[in-house]
């Protein structure tokens, strides 16, 4: 498994480097090479997750390592799917650094497979954690697109330019999807918590930070849909939002122990 993890990280890194070079040089051939490397990395990554799932006898999303690995996997998959649908290389250029960095973070987490604690043995496990993975992955790519947008703006690109409008719009749509998934995370978690701990809301740090993140994205969406904010301001909000997401994902586990503290355990 360790070998597959290492191969996945290296291939994601290589795909990212080639993709950057291709974007800088605007060379379609290099993009195709980056896609090939990414597919190889995703195959190795998928194999690692399947192997781990079989070895653990459950969905491999139960601790910080597994969740981070699932998060990186979802970033790569969403990136590939969106690239195929929208034919926008910018999506992959934004997704690849996120996939590489998150999987690298996973590599530093304890990796031993442990018995699932009783509180996690629930039919809500798949929906709650699976939607969290999809939500975080969408937000991560959206933040990557926002960074791309801001960098291009700094280089002198016009906000009215078609590519810039597309970057802005795709980032917004990813946030719509991520927000829907985050809502599923919060409310499936609430029902699960009511069954496990007798209260659907306890102001546990993880719950509280998920709510903070949800409110922040709600503000983002209101600003876009009602106040018609576009471009730079939306990109800045998306970048701030990903900091909240990352703190909810990793920071809370390490700094604010609570009912979700098992997430840090190997």
């Amino acid at each position, binding site marked *: 498994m360790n070998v597959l993890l290492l191969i996945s990280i290296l291939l994601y890194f290589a795909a990212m480097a080639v993709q950057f070079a291709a974007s800088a040089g605007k060379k379609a051939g290099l993009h195709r090479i980056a896609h090939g490397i990414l597919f190889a990395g995703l195959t190795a990554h998928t194999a690692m997750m399947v192997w781990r799932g079989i070895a653990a006898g459950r969905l491999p999303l139960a601790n910080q390592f597994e969740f981070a690995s699932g998060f990186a996997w979802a970033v790569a998959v969403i990136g590939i799917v969106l690239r195929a*649908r*929208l*034919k*926008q290389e910018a999506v992959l250029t934004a997704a690849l650094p996120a996939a590489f960095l998150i999987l690298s973070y996973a590599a530093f987490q304890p990796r031993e497979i442990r*018995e699932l*604690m*009783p*509180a996690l*043995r*629930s039919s*809500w496990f798949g929906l709650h954690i699976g939607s969290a993975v999809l939500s975080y992955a969408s937000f991560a790519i959206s933040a990557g697109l926002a960074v791309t947008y801001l960098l291009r703006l700094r280089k002198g690109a016009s906000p009215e330019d*078609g590519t810039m*409008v*597309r970057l802005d*719009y795709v980032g917004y749509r990813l946030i*719509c*999807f991520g*927000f*829907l998934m985050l*809502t*599923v995370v919060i*409310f499936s978690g*609430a*029902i*699960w918590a*009511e*069954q*496990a*701990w*007798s*209260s*659907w*809301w306890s*102001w546990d*740090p993880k719950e*509280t*930070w998920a*709510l*903070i993140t949800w*409110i*922040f994205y*709600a*503000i983002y969406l*209101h600003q876009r*849909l*009602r*106040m018609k904010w576009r471009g730079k301001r939306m990109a800045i909000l998306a970048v701030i939002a990903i900091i909240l997401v990352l703190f909810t994902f990793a920071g*809370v586990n390490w700094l*604010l122990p609570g009912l979700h503290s098992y997430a840090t355990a190997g």
Partner: protein
Amino acid sequence: MKKVFLFLRSMRFGMILLCLIMILSLAGSLIPQGEEAMTYVRAYGAGAASWIIRLGIDDLFHSWYFLLIMGLLCGNLLLCSILRFPKTLRTMEGLKRQAKEAEWDHPLAPGQAEKIRDRLSAMHFRRDGNLYTAHGIGAYGSFLVHLSILLILLFGSLTLMTPKIQDLTVLPGDSLTLADGTEVTCLSFRIENEKGELDYTSLLRAISPGGDREKEQEVRVNEPLRFGQYKIYQQTYGTAGRVLIQNEGNGAEETLYLTEPAFLSIDSRNGVYFQTLYPGYIQEEDGSYTLITSTAMGYADPVYSVQSISEGSSASVLAFPGETIRIGEISFIFLEPEEYPGLRIKTLSPFLYGGLYFGFGLIVAALYLCFFHTPVCVRVEEEGVVIRASKEVPELRAQLDESGQGEFSI
């Protein structure tokens, strides 16, 4: 007055409230909640601690100002939802009117209009003359999102604040009688399942006061027992000593659970005084015992600390499982300890859970409508096309844009 009302129902006010909730939640997650005053003094110093307590930051999520903000948010949501509803109902009419009145978004070449009409029909757009409409139901998405948040806040507060919660322990074989006469019997309790995994499972039987309804169920974490207004959760567990008492005089015998100090006697003078059950012990080289009080390793080598009392004299002894202490005709046989469950019994109307869970389901469905069912009206004539939607729809434009060849274009 009108200005105040307009502000209270405005989105700007809603955003201010959301920001305040976010900031307070952040503070509440960083500053420990519900701790003793000394904890805050140690962590932040006496001056800051006194402000934390004075401002109620030590119980921030129940403070009057947090509850007030939540109440104001409910008011804001209610006002803006109710007042916007008539406009929501007219969304599609408004789009049709705009489409009719607008200049062409995309002028068409001869013959192109028919292709676009075919494409719209294939996409299940509803035709009304030159107007094609779709996703009218999406207009209600935003309204339903706000309504569901209101439902969640209302039923959520009731489910958090109104239930009666009791934490009780029950020994295997014993029963609890609840306030309305419902009887809950613990038939058995186990910590591990057949595979050796930690499981913490109680087999419970609940019988309604009249005895007309009965339910038996294994209760474990994630699987509470629902019985009428009660929900019974597997909460904790404890370990109880057990002693088999045999009376050789009349042949009677009884097994008792020992959870607290107790004097076991028939005549109130002679017998065994149970002090405590130790989880383990270490036997020293000189034969003495060092008793372990920590339960971190479970009850690996349990030992009973008792006093035998007979005819006015007493002696402290350690009794190991399987050992017998005889006092006159009575034998006290100490058995292996047994685990027993701690149950949480929550009394709450199922109607409130129903309201809350309906709110959860509604918000997910409403967000889906809001984001992925944008109401749209397309006017197609030979000269050109007009697209009007309540939100951006570049995907639709791309799908209708033949030159785009399926690519994402605006």
